[in-house]
């Protein structure tokens, strides 16, 4: 059976796949959050929890030949684009077996073999990098696209406008996906962002669309349009996906912030709009899956999480005697 959601029919399998992809990010990150609180993880950790529908909506339509660039909040994109959870976890644990052999950590997880240019510690940096990758894709001529995920805060970096301009002029196959979660760190968007971000595409003549970032189907359809537009050689799109991060900006924030920057009510409101339970309900209501199906997925993911953590915990730290100065130059 399949659900018709404004023109698009997804098979049961696809729907369950979306659910799995989102839940997988959620559970892995919940565990990362717990581990961070327990002091098992060095460095800062920024979780994607609450925003999973955006990453999954887009990445589920990409292949390894397509490129994505991500942000400081990059685990979700890494996983959605096919990144390995063991390698991710080991990296965040700073281990030798990590995706970047412990050299990068949470803010730098990347897997170039899967088209994951990587998380980035510099807000907005992925925008220019993906524009270059999209230029490469255009020259390759095989229809690959580049997608930069970035936040509403990052949209205030001038580079976004520079990129829109050049991408329109060169008709680059690139999609700028702004995940507007309402905050730049602790500053509410209204205090640091004038107007609607999606409108910033207009003066350049770039395609643009705003979408409910907590509605996987809506995101998926919007992504499909933008990807098609890009693959067809019609140039860039700017997508603004409205969403919310259900966790802190950074996991440690409660320990160092002197005051609150958002109300419990606001958080509660958005918990009520959590993309994952909403999607579960939708799948079940449509009869595309049973609770047992979802439970099975839950169990599979729990096993994956455990395996990833065991892998990470069981892995050695990189040995300073042989590592640490190897990779500056090829």
């Amino acid at each position, binding site marked *: 059976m399949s659900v018709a959601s404004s023109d698009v029919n997804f098979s049961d399998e696809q729907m369950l796949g979306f659910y799995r992809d989102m839940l997988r990010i959620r559970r892995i990150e919940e565990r990362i959050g717990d581990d961070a609180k327990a002091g098992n993880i*060095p*460095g*800062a950790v920024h979780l994607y929890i609450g925003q999973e529908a955006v990453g999954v909506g887009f990445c589920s339509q990409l292949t390894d030949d397509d490129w994505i660039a991500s942000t400081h909040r990059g685990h979700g994109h890494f996983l959605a684009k096919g990144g390995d959870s063991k390698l991710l976890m080991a990296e965040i644990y*700073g*281990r030798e077996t*990590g995706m*970047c*052999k*412990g*050299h*990068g*950590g*949470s*803010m*730098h997880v990347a897997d170039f073999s899967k088209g994951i240019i990587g998380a*980035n*510690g*510099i*807000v*907005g940096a992925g925008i220019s990098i993906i524009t270059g990758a999209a230029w490469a894709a255009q020259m390759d001529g095989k229809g690959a696209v580049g997608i930069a995920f970035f936040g509403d*805060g*990052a949209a*205030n*970096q*001038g580079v976004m406008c520079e990129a829109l301009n050049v991408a329109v002029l060169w008709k680059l196959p690139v999609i700028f996906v702004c995940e507007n979660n309402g905050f*730049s*760190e*602790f*500053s509410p968007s209204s*205090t*640091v*962002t004038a107007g609607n971000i999606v409108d910033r595409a207009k003066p350049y003549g770039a395609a643009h669309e705003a979408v409910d970032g907590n509605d996987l189907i809506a995101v998926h359809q919007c992504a499909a349009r933008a990807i098609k537009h890009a693959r067809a050689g019609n140039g860039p799109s700017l997508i603004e996906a409205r969403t919310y991060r259900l966790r802190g900006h950074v996991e440690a924030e409660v320990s*160092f*912030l*002197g*005051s609150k*920057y958002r109300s419990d009510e606001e958080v509660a409101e958005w918990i009520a709009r959590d993309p994952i339970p909403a999607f579960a309900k939708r799948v079940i209501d449509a009869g595309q899956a049973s609770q047992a199906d979802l439970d099975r997925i839950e169990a599979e993911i729990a096993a994956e999480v455990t395996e990833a953590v065991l892998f990470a915990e069981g892995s050695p*730290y*990189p*040995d*300073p005697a042989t*590592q*640490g*100065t190897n*990779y*500056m130059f090829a």
Partner: protein
Amino acid sequence: MAKKRMIQAINEALDGEMARDPKVVVFGEDVEISLFGDTRGLKDKHGAHRVRNMPISETVMSGMAVGAAAAGYKVVCHMMFGNFMYTGFDSIANQASKLRYMTAGQIALPIVYMGVFGGGRSAAAQHSDAMHPMIMNLGGIKVALPATPADAMGLLRSAIHDPNPVMFLQAAGRGGEQGEVPEGDHVIELGKASTVQEGDDVTVVAIGAMVRPAMRAAQELARAGIGVDLIDPRTVVPLDSEMILDSVRKTGRLVVVDEARDMCSAASHIAAICADQCFDALKAPIRRVTVPDVALPYSPPLEKALLPNVASISKAVRRLLGKAAEEGA
């Protein structure tokens, strides 16, 4: 004197200067709530017009500092992590450092660019640079790197009073460090080094966060009968080369400890000054204890091994004194 944490000393310096001079303003990303705590509470005390949150727009931000300073304000521009300076680097490198010169001194540019620098907390490559050598090479920007809460307060006050751009670099993760801070208007002149400890055998110059491990190393070396003249330059622009040269003339030996990557580091420059200006006094090679020329790694053991520490400083000193054998190295 009272014991204060580094971050509190910085906060009090800002608070005190804002209270004294209505022209002092503070802006940057999230300076209202304050990530590090250094600007916390300032908005409530000094008003929303003088303490302003910026969008994430370092390019316009660093340039706004130039414009507001040129127009008469004493601007504290908080860059958060020093690495984010690169994002707004034009106004630092092409404007703030050059505008007074290009206009033959028509203006003063009282700007303090603040930021956290250096490693040690698994912040990884893009949050751990020690960028003071790069700023030193620009020439038109003073650079302060306090090693203690007292110095943080005193140097920051001077930086705010200074009519020139000053880069005020706080060592990453050292905000909680406690130290005695003099009461009242504690000010430390930019360009005056401090002798942390006197000794006759070797001069150790340690910069910023490196002062603490260098102190420990000096104490350890003292027990082995090695007298370390330990100097903290406190600012690298201006650099108190006289104090360093005097010390090296006394000891004949120099080790420079710098958290920067080695190539063209402050350590290189201090070594070069001494190899030039007090060559005749030198009894031994000049050693640098610096960070290898890599972007810092995330994994704690890797990062730790790359940063100068008590052991590597001690070792460099012992080797210089030909006492390598004693430590079994």
